[in-house]
């Protein structure tokens, strides 16, 4: 290598350093797999799953389609940075290959190709690569301009909050931002002095850098480009930019069937890859109901897990409403991570349920519905009563499973990270259900619904009462006439985001009145503030969240707020100006106008007395 080309060394050293550190970290994370290689993983490795992973890397790692669907400007920013850089890496390889006829070169040769070969062989292919590389660079620079704009005025990119980065991340960001403008100037100057170049670098060189006085600047600029690249690679393994390689590895591992552990292991297996694949893009910030009060959003939580400091309080104050998981563009299992973290905090907690009575199997006649109202159902007898009235109206037979002795379903323990401790509760409830002959299990609590569906492995289908009532309405077993009532509907987190049930409650309300559109609803709905996920959020903080949610719900024209979760109903009703009712109550009342009349008459009679 000639002496003038020594400027490639900062880049090469940084690049090698990053490679070695990455390799060591990945090998450390995957240590358990070397000891016990799973046959499933090996068989999936050489199958279509790898191709599917490559497709996902292309659509999410490069094109960032999920971000694009949420926010076009932000999606374009991520896409132009990633795709532009990728185009340049691939183009660099092909260009050197095309030019020298050799496929293998030192990595530095492609990166600083223009310095070594300012005037490449002509022909259409040579011209194509020149313009192609310039297009890649232009794309990255567009992304960079948007990224800088995002730092100055977030609103232009259509977001309200962006991640506050730590020092090391800001340093890495600065080096990253320096790389591409320096490359542009260095290439333009080389082309300006020696001629040639594509539509961007060539034109810039001809118009600005053709003066002979600037010739002495050529080498320093290439040095600066190499230094910023090298410095970026040195900080990469210790900054959020570790997400670039880790996200790709994560996608492969997921497609090969690796699943995250239930307990917290931030430096082991898939969980390590998940924690380090977060780019802190900030999509989890704006959707968080507590963004204005607390820094427990996933970007910060994962950062705390990476550093090993401060994750405890972030895990136990978060509401687990699931909004960040819904918004995460790389589908990280954030809820699972949070419960794992809570489990780690309370690993000394153990539960003893030996006092529970044993359930004797009961042989009953076949009924349509097994009704489970859960713990919270006992606090809302009006909902249970209304639902039973509706069953009666629909001509359904039912057994109320926990009318006498109610046992928790186990999900509250799971949300606190103590799922293993809940096995005795699940066993008790399973015995309660197994003796019965019924077509379905219906619960009025979305928390129970989720637990019964996911963890009980029941033979009979489990429905939330809104799904069940909607089924009755469609089948003509319930008949409702559209009244004048105007409702705003609150989506409970556990029913909406966690169980993907949005349509049934809406159809039911539309059948008997008008459902008002809200600023944030369905997957974007805010948490009521009473989620069982949060363990140490104080009452005043919960109340602040509730009032924010109520602001969304109390739209003009709304006569009542309707929800389908006893926790949400209880909590919203405490602070709401409007009456807050359960779906079943609304449906039971609106269907019977003559009864409503009777009630008004009775009330009037009482007042007369």
């Amino acid at each position: 290598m000639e002496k003038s080309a020594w400027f490639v060394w900062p880049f090469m050293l940084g690049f090698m350093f990053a490679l070695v550190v990455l390799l060591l970290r990945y090998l450390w994370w995957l240590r358990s797999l070397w000891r016990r290689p799973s046959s499933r993983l090996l068989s999936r490795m050489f199958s279509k799953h790898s191709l599917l992973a490559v497709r996902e890397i292309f659509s999410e790692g490069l094109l960032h389609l999920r971000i694009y669907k949420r926010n076009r400007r932000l999606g374009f920013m991520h896409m132009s940075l990633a795709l532009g850089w990728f185009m340049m890496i691939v183009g660099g390889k092909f260009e050197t290959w095309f030019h020298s006829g050799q496929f293998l070169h030192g990595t530095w040769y492609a990166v600083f190709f223009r310095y070594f070969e300012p005037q490449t062989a002509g022909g259409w292919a040579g011209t194509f690569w020149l313009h192609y590389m310039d297009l890649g660079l232009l794309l990255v620079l567009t992304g960079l301009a948007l990224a800088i704009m995002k730092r100055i005025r977030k609103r232009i990119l259509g977001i309200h909050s962006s991640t506050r980065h730590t020092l090391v991340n800001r340093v890495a960001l600065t080096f990253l931002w320096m790389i591409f403008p320096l490359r542009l100037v260095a290439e333009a100057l080389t082309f300006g002095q020696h001629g040639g170049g594509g539509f961007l670098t060539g034109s810039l060189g001809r118009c600005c850098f053709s003066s002979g006085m600037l010739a002495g600047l050529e080498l320093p600029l290439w040095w600066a480009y190499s230094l910023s690249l090298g410095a970026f690679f040195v900080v990469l393994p210790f900054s959020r930019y570790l997400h670039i390689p880790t996200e790709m590895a994560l996608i492969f591992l997921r497609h090969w069937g690796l699943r995250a552990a239930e307990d917290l292991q931030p430096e082991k297996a898939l969980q390590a890859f998940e924690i380090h694949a977060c780019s802190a893009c900030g999509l989890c910030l704006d959707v968080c109901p507590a963004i204005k009060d607390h820094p427990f959003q996933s970007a910060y939580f994962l950062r705390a897990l990476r550093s090993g400091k401060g994750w405890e309080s972030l895990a136990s104050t978060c509401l687990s409403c699931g909004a960040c998981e819904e918004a995460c563009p790389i589908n990280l299992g954030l809820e699972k991570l949070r419960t794992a973290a809570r489990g780690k905090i309370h690993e000394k907690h153990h539960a003893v349920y030996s006092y529970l009575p044993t359930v004797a199997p009961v042989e009953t006649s076949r009924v349509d519905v097994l009704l489970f109202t859960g713990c919270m159902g006992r606090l809302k007898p009006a909902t249970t009563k209304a639902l039973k009235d509706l069953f009666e109206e629909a001509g359904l037979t039912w057994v109320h499973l926990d009318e006498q002795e109610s046992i928790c379903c186990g999900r509250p323990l799971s949300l606190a990270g103590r799922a293993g401790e809940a096995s005795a509760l699940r066993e008790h409830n399973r015995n309660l259900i197994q003796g019965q002959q019924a077509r379905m299990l219906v619960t009025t609590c979305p928390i129970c619904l989720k637990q019964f569906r996911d963890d009980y492995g029941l033979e009979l289908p489990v429905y939330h009462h809104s799904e069940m009532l909607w089924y009755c309405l469609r089948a003509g077993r319930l008949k409702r006439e559209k009244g004048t009532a105007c409702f705003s509907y609150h989506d409970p987190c556990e029913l909406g985001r966690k169980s993907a049930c949005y349509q049934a409650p809406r159809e039911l309300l539309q059948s008997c009145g008008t459902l008002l559109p809200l600023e944030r609803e369905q997957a974007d709905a805010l948490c009521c503030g009473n989620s069982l996920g949060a363990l140490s959020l104080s009452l005043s903080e919960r109340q602040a969240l509730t009032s924010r949610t109520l602001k969304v719900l109390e739209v003009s024209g709304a006569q009542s707020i309707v929800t389908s979760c006893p926790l949400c109903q209880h909590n919203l009703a405490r602070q709401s100006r409007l009456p807050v009712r359960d779906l079943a109550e609304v449906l039971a009342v609106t269907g019977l106008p003559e009864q409503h009349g009777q009630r008004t008459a009775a009330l009037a009679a009482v007042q007369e007395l």
Partner: protein
Amino acid sequence: MPKPDFGFAFAPNRALDLSAPLLPEVQVVLETEPSIRACMACGQCAAVCTAGAFTPLAFYRLVLQLRGGDVAAVGERARHCMLCGKCQMTCPRGVNIRNAVLLMAALAPPKP
């Protein structure tokens, strides 16, 4: 000093000396979940308790016992809680009962 007559009597073992220093493990619990201090032993939590229907579990009693320093008994009893959160929903003082119970249950010696 003669005992003052309040017009009622109580067993000495149920008296709570608020000026007595707290045990270090009790202090840790109270510092980790400060809302426990807001408890006024009204008994709402016990009235709605799911586990309380089967076993004598009452959160307000746990708080009193904790203050009294009966750590082992608190830990044993707190393990019976199902963490359903009904008590927290009805608590007029906004005590984070679920977190408190998780901390209290950890006070008992580990399961054999």
